[in-house]
């Protein structure tokens, strides 16, 4: 059984232009490892949506990625304001993103639903005033 590959990324909270750099890097690594294009895309989209959310809402944070022969696990951790009502946040179209973010092409309330759609398993732990952790798993076999 090969050792899992572990990667860790700092996501800056104040630089929207760099949002997605971590997801792009993970996508490149997964392609090099020869994962199926479907699995690569599922990881890329779910992680990218999460990374964008961390920048928009969470003030940045850390992303931890673990790759095993069976699955890719992602843990996105921020110390932002937290989510008051997770079930509301999961509804398509519901968003607290400011106008400035909408002008950049995001904030349509599709981020969390999309992360759930593209990952095989997703869990959100959030405490108001402390931050949010989103754990996602994409099965690769």
């Amino acid at each position, binding site marked *: 059984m090969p050792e899992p590959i572990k990667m860790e990324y700092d996501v800056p909270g104040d630089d929207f232009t760099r949002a997605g750099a971590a997801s792009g890097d993970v996508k490149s690594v997964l392609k090099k490892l020869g994962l199926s294009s479907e699995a690569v895309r599922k990881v890329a989209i779910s992680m990218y*949506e999460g990374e964008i959310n961390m920048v928009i809402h969470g003030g940045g944070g850390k992303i931890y990625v673990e790759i095993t022969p069976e699955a890719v696990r992602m843990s996105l951790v921020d110390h932002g304001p937290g989510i008051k009502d997770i079930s509301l946040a999961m509804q398509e179209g519901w968003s607290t993103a400011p106008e400035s973010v909408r002008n950049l092409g995001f904030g349509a309330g599709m981020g969390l639903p999309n992360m759930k759609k593209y990952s095989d398993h997703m869990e959100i732990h959030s405490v108001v005033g402390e931050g949010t952790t989103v754990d996602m798993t994409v099965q690769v076999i």
Partner: protein
Amino acid sequence: MLIKEIEKILKANVLCKGDWYEGEVHTACGSDLMSDVLAFVKDQSVLLTGLVNSQVVRTADMMDMRCIVFVRGKQPDQSIIDLANERGIALMTTPYRMFTACGLLYENGLKGGCESDA
């Protein structure tokens, strides 16, 4: 349709050729909302947009798109062109507006790729 045919049809200025300039594409989508592209686009290879920022390239990359067309003559800055180069995505800018650009490509055989408009 070849990506270089898109250049011709849209009277476009190619800013970077990416890895697929000589390659063929079959479907496209037009949107200024990257949230929608991430949520609803499936296998489209070309993105037409009036939005100009680095997240357009990031979004196209995550969706395995091969070509981005900026409409209304919008010009991305060098950092966006560099990112597209790095990610292997062709980038071009057309003087046409979104509706006309989409119409011209559709008329020439490029489809939406969705069940309702295939």
